[in-house]
């Protein structure tokens, strides 16, 4: 898959407000995402991170503000984006291959098979979803999203229900597909370690706003055993729990990447 197959996309979110009945979920949220970036959104449950993702997908409307894709305001479904849901949402009455081909003609069958090969499920294409494990189902869901060549991939806690080992495997798979295909990705997760491991930037949501914007200056592939890796996780966790981190790393971590490397090496 070539990079030029993908349209450039820049997502720009201005002063989004959203309330369900009386409850305000998003209170004037701003977020810029550039082409090819992998952004992870973390936050306590109920902080509105999934709502934000659904607004970007065009599945949810909002009360105030604007969402722009390449300076064009989004209205209705976001056709450039494909969403991966936490519960997979495969159609149980369709075989794997037909789930992946959903919404596409027979002509894209070959492409669907290729995509399934990329997620490592080529030999299961004629099975029904009920025969697959949780991780395999999410692989199918990933292939179903990617076969549309979205320039923006939205991931709504897709690994939340998986066991720890499968989750690591899936993180690697998503990262490598992102590197090869050069799409822009937004991952909503409650797992800070996952966010640090996979994203270019971790965004923390609190009280309907972005309360922390933390670029991750770690080279890929990332080692979880790296001390700087745990500095990042600790720093973000400290913000989530509103606890003062024992060691205040924010000064260190927010240096430019080169001086950060120097600090680490000394």
């Amino acid at each position: 898959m070539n990079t030029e197959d993908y349209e450039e996309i820049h997502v720009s979110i201005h002063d989004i407000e959203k309330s369900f009945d009386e409850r305000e979920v998003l209170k004037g949220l701003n977020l810029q995402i550039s082409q090819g970036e992998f952004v992870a959104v973390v936050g306590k449950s109920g902080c509105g991170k999934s709502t934000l993702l659904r607004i970007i997908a065009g599945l949810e409307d909002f009360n105030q503000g604007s969402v722009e894709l390449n300076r064009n305001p989004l209205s209705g479904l976001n056709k450039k984006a494909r969403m991966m849901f936490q519960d997979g949402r495969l159609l149980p009455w369709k075989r794997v291959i037909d789930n992946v081909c959903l919404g596409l003609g027979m002509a894209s069958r070959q492409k669907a098979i290729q995509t399934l090969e990329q997620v490592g499920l080529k030999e299961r294409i004629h099975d029904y979803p009920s025969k697959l494990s949780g991780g395999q189902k999410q692989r199918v869901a990933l292939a179903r999203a990617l076969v549309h060549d979205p320039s923006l991939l939205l991931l709504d806690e897709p690994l939340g229900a998986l066991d720890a080992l499968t989750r690591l495997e899936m993180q690697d798979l998503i990262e490598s597909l992102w590197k090869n295909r050069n799409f822009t990705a937004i991952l909503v997760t409650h797992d800070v370690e996952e966010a640090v491991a996979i994203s270019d930037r971790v965004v923390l949501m609190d009280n309907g706003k972005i309360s922390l914007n933390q670029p991750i200056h770690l080279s890929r592939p990332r080692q979880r055993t790296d001390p700087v890796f745990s500095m990042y996780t600790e720093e973000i966790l400290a913000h989530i729990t509103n606890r003062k981190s024992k060691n205040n790393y924010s000064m260190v971590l927010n240096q430019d990447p080169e001086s950060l490397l120097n600090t680490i090496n000394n």
Partner: protein
Amino acid sequence: MNWRTKGPAEQILPWFIPFLVLAGWQYLSWTGAIPERILPAPTQIVEAAIELTASGELYDHMSISLGRALAGFLIGGILGFLLGLFNGVFRFADLFFDTSIQMLRNIPHLALIPLVILWFGIGETSKIFLVALGVLFPVYINTYHGIKSVDKNLIEMGKAYGLKGKELFFHVILPGAMSSILVGIRFSLGVMWLTLIVAETISAQTGIGYMAMNAREFMQMDVIVLSIVIYALFGKLSDVIARCFEGKLLKWNN
């Protein structure tokens, strides 16, 4: 649903009790413990079946009953299915029709027999009308409920992946409602036979029910029991066919 892979013991075992009952019944008839006037022996029933088949009488009655059942089932089933479909999918149709249908549903359709005889006489129309009426409601309720209870998340997913209108209906909504629709169909098959038996017994000049009532006048116990056995076989047969459809349409579900 793995009946193909059942071993011989598993295939024979379910028939053990029916066979035992039949053998016991035959034995008790031979010894005279069951008087012929109360219940004829199985062999006598088989003899009656052979005799009536040879005269062509049995075939005529059976095909007439089957025709009535099928016609009523198709009319009522298709109407119930379409109504359930429209009311499940379109909000306007739901508001417009559902309350009225729910009110009509509460009238036992067999209570309408006197009225139906006055309207349509005792000809074919009255029987087909009653069967159709009986079949309509179970199919309606289950289709309506099936469509209403399709997972909203799957519908949202379908829309997010670009499906709408006809595509959304055939790929997501209808398959999602299918198991409930089939429950309705299986249930309505039972109602179909029940209605037909009652209608044919009360007012008819042909059909299995008429054959039984006619035999009663001449005290032909064997023919009466034969009619009951035929109804049972018909019922079993339609259930097997319905199950077969279920296995085919819901094969993703096992």
